């Protein structure tokens, strides 16, 4: 489950950020996301969250969205893993 979530999350980030194939494979827990990638503005983050909901079959409440979870790849992975009950 955890490995699968990791794989799906890398795939979603590839789609949303328009990354080259394989580029997301190099992300580690400390890879910076929001605040580090200029293309991740609020509209893009909203799109990313909606895509996470649709493809990981989770619901993200607005008040759950915190800077910490979006700051790094590891933060976002921990959030969606908790959401999926991994």
């Amino acid at each position, binding site marked *: 489950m955890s490995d699968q979530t990791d794989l799906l999350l890398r795939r979603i980030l590839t*789609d949303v950020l*328009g990354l080259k194939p394989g580029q997301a494979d190099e992300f580690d827990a400390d890879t910076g996301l929001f605040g580090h*990638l200029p293309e991740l*503005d*609020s509209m893009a983050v*909203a799109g990313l969250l*909606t895509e996470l909901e649709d493809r990981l079959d989770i619901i993200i409440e*607005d008040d759950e969205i915190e800077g910490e979870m979006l700051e790094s790849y590891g933060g976002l992975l921990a959030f969606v893993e908790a959401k999926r009950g991994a």
Partner: protein
Amino acid sequence: MEVASWPCPLADGGTSSEFALACDRGRARRLLVVPALFDEGNKLRRFTVEVMRRLDAAGIDSLLPDLPGCNESLLPLENRHPGEWREAMAAAARHFGAAATLALRGGCLFTPAALPAFHYAPVKAAAILRQMLRARILSSREAGIDETREALAAQALAGGLTLAGYPLGADFYRGFEAMEPGAAATVIAQNQIGGSGLWLRAEPDENPAQADALAALVAGIIGA
């Protein structure tokens, strides 16, 4: 590809001259193209036009009108209404003599009922609004303002609301939020095109292979 204009009927009984992008060689096979909406419209604009170029090469004329209040339109968006948009697209289809419609994403909500339609990755209005509301909540939070979805929806229905830079009037919001794409259309899903939808991208992008695939599917059904 040329610039064309067409008389757009307005809800107040008037008419407005609106812009359209036209691949028009007077051919019998003519397609009205209804653009995606708001932020998705920007992200898919180049893709839309690239599909039109490929349809042109396949012997199909295509016409891409502006929705009144969007793109090059001089009309204020906050005074528009979804019913007016539906009438506008039907009027554009009649004006240009379109035989069928290709609509993208939220554009599928406004395809003229009288014509056969292709719906590329259709989406409900509620899903578009959900994402725009979320973007508004996130950007407000960055500015230190706490907003909730419920309060914003109430505000939209009372006096209109600006979402992702688009001022939507109360009448627009009320009429729009329950809209769903018509069931009679031929749906073209993203997995038939390959890759991921360009509307998902954080930045506008292009993809020639996807444009090839969508144009080939449409041209294949319309017939050579």
